[in-house]
C-alpha cells in the first residue's frame, strides 16, 4: 500500500520525462525551447563545474538567494512578531493597523521593486527590503490573531495571581499565540522566498537563483531556466520538510502549543 503511493507518481513522472526526451529527439517539439531532461541535467552540471577550482556558479547563485532569504525573513520575522504583539495587546493599535495591512498585503513584491530600486539601487538592499516586507505581513497578522485568541479566563487568572502586564505577555499571551506565530512564520518565510526570487528577476545585480533564471531566459537558454525551477522545487522541499518541520518539532510541538 505504502509502496504504491510512490510507484504511481514516480512512474508518471518518469514516463512524462521519457516522452519529453523522446519528443525532443524526434523533433516533435523544439528542443531549444523545450530543453529535454538530458540537456537540463547537462546544463546544470556544466553550470556547477565550469569554473570549479574557484567556485561553482550554480551554488553561488543558490547561496546568494538563500542568504537574502534568511536575512530578509529574519528581519521580517522580528518586526512582524513585535508588530503582532503590539496589535494583539492593544485594541487601538489593532484597529489602526488592520486596515493598512489588509490593503498593503495583496500588493506583490515585484510591484514594489521599482520603487525600492529608485530609493536603494539595484542589488541586495532592495531585494532584502522587499523580501522582509513580504515576510512581515503574514507574521504580524498571525501573531496578532494568536495573541488576541488568548483565553481571557487564563489572562484574568494570571492577573489575580499577581502576574504583571509584561509578565503575562511572556507567560500567557506568547504561549497562547505559539501555534499561530509558527503558522505565520511558515507563511511569511514561504512568501519571502517567492518574493526574493521574483525581485531578483528585476533587481539583482549579478547573482541569485532568480537572476540566473531570468538571465538564461533572455538568451533563451531553456535548459538553465527549467533547471533553475527544478532547483527551486528542491530547495523549497528541503526548507519546508527539514527546516520547518524540525523547528516546529523542537519548539511549539514540544512545548505542547499545538497537537501533532
Amino acid at each position, binding site marked *: 500500500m505504502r509502496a504504491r503511493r510512490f510507484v504511481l507518481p514516480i512512474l*508518471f513522472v518518469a514516463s512524462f520525462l521519457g516522452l519529453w526526451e523522446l519528443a525532443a529527439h524526434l523533433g516533435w517539439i523544439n528542443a531549444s525551447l523545450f530543453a529535454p531532461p538530458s540537456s537540463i541535467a547537462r546544463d546544470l552540471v556544466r553550470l556547477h563545474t565550469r569554473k570549479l577550482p574557484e567556485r561553482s556558479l550554480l551554488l553561488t547563485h543558490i547561496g546568494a538567494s538563500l542568504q537574502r532569504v534568511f536575512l530578509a525573513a529574519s528581519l521580517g520575522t522580528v518586526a512582524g512578531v513585535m508588530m503582532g504583539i503590539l496589535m494583539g495587546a492593544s485594541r487601538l493599535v489593532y484597529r489602526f493597523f488592520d486596515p493598512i495591512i489588509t490593503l498593503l498585503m*495583496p500588493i506583490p513584491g515585484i510591484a514594489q521593486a*521599482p*520603487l525600492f530600486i529608485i530609493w536603494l539601487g539595484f542589488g541586495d538592499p532592495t531585494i532584502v527590503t522587499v523580501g522582509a516586507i513580504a515576510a512581515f505581513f503574514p507574521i504580524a497578522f498571525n501573531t496578532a490573531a494568536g495573541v488576541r485568541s488568548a483565553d481571557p479566563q487564563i489572562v484574568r487568572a494570571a492577573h489575580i495571581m499577581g502576574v504583571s502586564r509584561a509578565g503575562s505577555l511572556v507567560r500567557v499571551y506568547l504561549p497562547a499565540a505559539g501555534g499561530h506565530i509558527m503558522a505565520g512564520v511558515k507563511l511569511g518565510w514561504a512568501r519571502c522566498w517567492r518574493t526574493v526570487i521574483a525581485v531578483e528577476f528585476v533587481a539583482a545585480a549579478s547573482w541569485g537563483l532568480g537572476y540566473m533564471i531570468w538571465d538564461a*531566459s533572455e538568451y533563451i537558454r531553456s535548459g538553465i531556466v527549467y533547471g533553475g525551477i527544478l532547483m527551486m522545487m528542491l530547495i523549497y522541499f528541503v526548507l519546508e520538510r527539514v527546516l520547518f518541520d524540525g523547528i516546529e518539532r523542537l519548539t511549539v510541538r514540544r512545548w505542547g502549543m499545538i497537537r501533532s
Partner: protein
Amino acid sequence: MNGQTQAPSTKHAPWKDRLIHAGQFVLPFLVIAAVWELIVRVGWVSATALPPPSAILQRAWELCTGEGLLWHHLGQSMVRLSIGYALAMGAGLVFGTILAMNRVLREMFSPVLSLLISVPTIAWVPVFLITLGLGDRTVIAAVFLGGFFAIAYNTIRGIEMVDVNRIRAAQTMGARGIRLFSAVLLPGSSVSVLTGLRLGIGYSWRALVGGEMLSAMVRWGIGKMIYQARFWNDVTVMFVGLMVIGLTGFLLDRLLIRWLERATIERWGMVTER
C-alpha cells in the same frame, strides 16, 4: 438569519453601522497621509524621493481624467485577468473534480501537484516568455497558473469531504457527469471551492502584475505602468500604481467573492452569515 442575537445590540440603521465601519477603515489611512504630507512639507525628506499624498492624488486624478491613461492600463489588465481567471476556474474545477473522483489519478498526480505548487507562479514567467512569446499570452498563462493550483487543490479537498453516501445515492438515481457534478459535488464542496476561488483571484491578480512587468511586448497594464515609471524615475506614478493594485486586489476579494458567497453558500445556508 439569526435575528435573535442581533436585535438588542443594533439600535440604529444598518447603513449607519456600515458608515462607522467604513470610517474606521479609512481613518488610519487619513492619519498616515497627514503625517506623511507634513514630513515632506517640513522638508525632512525630498519630495522627489517621497512625493506627498497630495501630489500622488493629483497625479492619480490627472491619469484618470483627460486621456484616461489609468483606465486604459487598468482595462487591459482586467481583460487579461478575466480571461486567465476564467480559464483557471474552468480547468481547476474540472481537473480537481476528476482527481477527487478517481483514486488512481489522484495518487498519480498529487505528489506532482504539491511539488508544482511550491514553485512561485512568477518563476514560470521566464518559461512562458520562451515558449509563448513576450506578449499577452505569457501574461494570461501566468494569471491562469496563479489561479489554477489554488482552485484545483481546494476543489479536490472539497469534493473529498462530500459524503460518499450522497454521491452513491445520486449515482443510484442515475446522476452522472455534469448532472452529478452540478447537483451533488459542487454544492457539497462549495465552501472549499469558494476558498479556492478566493485564494485564486488573489494569486491571479498578483501574477498578472508580475507578468505584465516582465513581458517586454506588453505596453499597457497596471503592472506595466509601474515598470515604465522606472525609466523616468517617476516615483509618483509608482505610488499611484501601487495604490491601484492594493485597492483593486481588495475590491476583487471583497466585492466579487462576497457576491459569489452570497449567491451560493449563504443562500444555501451552508455557512452562518457574519
